[in-house]
């Protein structure tokens, strides 16, 4: 009998405890004595954060950690939540499916490139989470994916599994710009006007409504023939059912308002108006519907349809009760979203924490992932940035960026690694395969980085 009990105990220990032990010792991190900007419940000085199993376990003074915890001295440092970029095309091998005005069947998930160096640079700017959107060439673009920048991990580790799915819409100039045609063979595409763009969207939802009815009838056994699965309409049905978030690119407020009216007509909610540089004109209408605005901090009047944009856009929207986020839409700008948030304090005087929320908690809410990220609160994922100075200072840069308690950017390690990389380069360059041919051969290629920019240009900046 006793033997049996011992045996059972052994079995249960071997079944359970290794996992627990492993998970506990896997990463326990204690950040000590830092200024903590929670982006939810205020700023606390000389405060500790205890991270266990990738989650924020405790926030307080003089916290205790187990013996094998990693201790990070936060004296003189500032700690913020990881930045969430609500509009990005980083790590996508393709951005625009140009052929049709409705390309809801496409998925950015299919073309993620986890080796994109821009991910690492974004981490170095404190960004941990991004909404990776299809481009803006089409009235209804592709399905987006919300990812955490787990650089170095396999591609399937990037998407946030429980993030609600979304889709890109685009209004105005970009989808109607058919005269700019990168492929001369292509048949000119409908629509050509702003009203045509609206018609395309309404038509798509009429088709989606019919398609939904076909399936509803089939499921209710009113019809025997199973309808064809239509990958174009399926995501739009999800929009109608409130299961998929709509992120609508646009600049002119009349167009954004029109889209809100179409959404009213079909009974769905638009999650975010993207760019929305004139959204201040329709702030009450946006607030009433609970729609978010994801804007640029500046880029005022940078193109004709953005002519009426003003520096106070963000402030007016915030004042009207609209959830405002500030996005980058750019690999480069992504690295300094902290300064874009700071601009919201300058123009109108958005309070400091509210400004910080615009790059953390608010985009997390807009993307439906605020249960796990966006602020420093107990129980949330440990997506945390440690800065050398207040993140709204022009002298600030991240020293450490972690996602779920794992460090993905460490400035000190980056600096020491540079010598190693230089050494590796020298070794590699000496190899035969890497030596340039003595004569002949093709001229050197334009570096990849520059080609990327050219490609963007060929896209007509349809991002």
């Amino acid at each position, binding site marked *: 009998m006793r033997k049996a009990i011992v045996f059972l105990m052994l079995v249960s220990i071997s079944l359970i405890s290794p996992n627990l032990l492993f998970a506990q010792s896997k990463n326990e991190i204690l950040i000590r004595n830092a200024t903590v900007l929670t982006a939810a419940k205020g700023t606390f000085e000389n405060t500790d954060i205890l991270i266990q199993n990738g989650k924020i376990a405790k926030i307080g003074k003089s916290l205790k950690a187990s013996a094998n915890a990693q201790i990070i001295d936060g004296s003189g440092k500032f700690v913020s939540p990881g930045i969430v970029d609500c509009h990005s095309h980083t790590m996508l091998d393709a951005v625009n499916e140009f052929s049709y005005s409705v390309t809801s069947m496409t998925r950015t998930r299919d073309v993620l490139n986890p080796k994109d160096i821009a991910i690492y640079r974004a981490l170095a700017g404190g960004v941990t989470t991004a909404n990776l959107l299809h481009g803006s060439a089409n009235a209804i673009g592709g399905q987006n994916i919300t990812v955490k920048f787990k650089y170095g991990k396999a591609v399937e580790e990037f998407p946030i599994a429980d993030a609600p799915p979304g889709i890109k819409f685009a209004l105005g100039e970009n989808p109607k710009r058919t005269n700019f045609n990168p492929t001369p063979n292509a048949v000119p595409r409908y629509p050509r006007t702003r009203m045509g763009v609206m018609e395309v969207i309404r038509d798509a939802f009429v088709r989606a409504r019919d398609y939904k009815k076909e399936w509803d009838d089939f499921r209710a056994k009113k019809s025997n023939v199973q309808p064809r699965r239509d*990958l174009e309409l399926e995501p739009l049905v999800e929009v109608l059912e409130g299961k998929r978030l709509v992120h609508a690119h646009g600049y002119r407020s009349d167009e954004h308002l029109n889209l809100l009216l179409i959404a009213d007509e079909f009974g769905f909610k638009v999650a975010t108006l993207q760019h929305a540089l004139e959204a201040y004109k329709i702030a009450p209408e946006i607030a009433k519907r609970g729609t978010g605005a994801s804007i640029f901090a500046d880029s005022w009047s940078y193109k004709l349809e953005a002519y009426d944009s003003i520096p106070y856009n963000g402030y007016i929207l915030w004042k009207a009760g609209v959830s405002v986020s500030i996005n980058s839409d750019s690999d480069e700008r992504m690295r300094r979203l902290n300064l874009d948030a700071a601009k919201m304090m300058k123009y109108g005087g958005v309070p400091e924490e509210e400004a910080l929320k615009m790059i953390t908690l608010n985009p997390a809410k807009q993307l439906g992932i605020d249960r796990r990220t966006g602020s420093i609160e107990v129980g949330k994922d440990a997506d945390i940035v440690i800065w050398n100075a207040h993140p709204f200072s022009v002298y600030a840069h991240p020293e450490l960026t972690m996602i779920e308690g794992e460090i993905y950017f460490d400035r000190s390690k980056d600096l020491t690694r540079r010598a190693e990389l230089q050494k590796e380069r020298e070794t590699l360059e000496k190899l035969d395969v890497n030596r340039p041919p003595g004569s002949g051969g093709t001229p050197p290629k334009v570096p990849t980085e520059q080609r990327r920019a050219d490609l963007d240009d060929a896209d007509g900046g349809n991002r």
Partner: protein
Amino acid sequence: MLRRNFAVPFLPSSALKIMKSLFRRCFVAVLAFVSIVMSVNAQTRTATFAITNAQVVTVSGPNLSRATVVVRDGLIEAVGENVKVPADARVIDGSGLIVYPGFFDANTSLGLAAPVAPRPAGQGLPTTPTQSPSNSNYPDGLQPEESAIERLKSGEAQFETNRNAGFTTVLTVSRDGVFNGQSALINLAGDSVSEMIIRAPFAEHFSFTTLRTGQYPTALLGTFSALRQMLLDAQRLQANRLTYDKNPRGMKRPEADKSLDALLPVLSRTMPIVFNANTEIEIIRALDLAKEFNLNAIISGGQEAGKVADRLKAQNVPVLLSLNFPKRTTTASPEADAESLDVLRLRAETPKTAGKLAGAGVKFAFQSGGMTSIGDFATNANKAVENGLTKDAAIRAMTLSAAEIFGVSDRLGSIEKGKIANLTVSRGDILSKDKTITHVFVDGKLFEQKEKPKTPTPTTGGTQPAATASVGGNYSITVEIPGQPLPGTLSLTQQGEILTGNLQTQLATTPIKDGKVTAEGFNFTTTVEFGGSTFDLFVSGKVTGNQISGTMTSPQGAIPFSGTKIP
């Protein structure tokens, strides 16, 4: 279902395949066998050979040091150290020679005619997408029913270069389109297409690319969704047909869609799908698609397959591994940025891929991967050996492993009694620099090297006589600028190894500079003015029959071109 197919004997072959796969396999195998036996009987009835006193690398069994291989009527009649030489055999003294099973090149486009006749010169750019001659519901490039058998040219002379390098069997398929179509496994001998075929169709081939006509898909995003929708539609078509065949009354007749039909054997796993994938992420994408639709996948290319060897092993996916290793081709320029670490690493790492796959237990076969000189095949196989692959495994990847992947290891890939007599005989180890291929047998037919090579020069390591190709003439070409094919005329005047002439397009007519003709083809430079600036275009290519093809490399990258000779 069965009855219907039998009642209509001229259904596309793909329709036959959705019947019982077992039946189909036997049927195809018997057909291939019968055609081989018949052809051998007809042409070389008395062809009996005995290679004596040779070292024999059987691959399936131990190496034999002084053995005899008897070839009769296209098959290996006997192999062993105590085999009697038949009285009627032509004896080849194999002293100092090594007999290998005929080598496979696991992915090529050999023997395929050009897809579409080029537009007449001077017609300018078309204003509408090129109309496909097919009556498929899908545009050119999205037609999985495209079949290599239909485009195969008959005649064995076209394979001389590859056969002389020791290759007897190749997989061949087009490289055009998102769906490249169905491949064929062929022997590099036989004067009719039916004689050459070992197994066809073997697999559907798929590229992560886009249509160049401006039609959907224009971006990689759309390529995925187009594939998904087609596979779903094919599944639905099949289900509807079953329902309809039971009771057609009151139900709309399912369409006879030949493109979707071609996907049915892929969905039922009876036909593998070969994904052209080189980078780590491309391979992962292919594996994920295979998982999503439960497909029988094969990776072709596989440059970075070593990085995902564990995934390949877990999903039991073989690799047709390219031996076209990347090397630096750009000249050094003080103004150019340094190459990225990724590029430098890739070149150093690629030869290690084969060893990594072998270590992880992933099945792989070597392919030429579009290399410019087939002599690089053995050279780079040897580099794989220098980088961690055993020599036996390297030979296996050119023989039995390939036969296994192609499902023909019961008749090819090793030197065993009763197998097809495909043999490659060389003086010197096939992976060494100093080797000469002396005899190649395909289907028991002997091809002796026409010209004994001069002393092999160690720098090239090649065994090919340094002849000069014949390339002179005027060619109507199309430069495949993505989405904007550019027609033009290439006028080549050849004087020995010197090439002159010009390149005419609607942009300009520019003279050829530094033109050279080599054994493989030709190359030249021409200066083009475009958008107010001038740059050098490096052009290299080859001429096969009346076909011309090659690459134009500019500072913006490389673009393929192809065309035909103007009579």
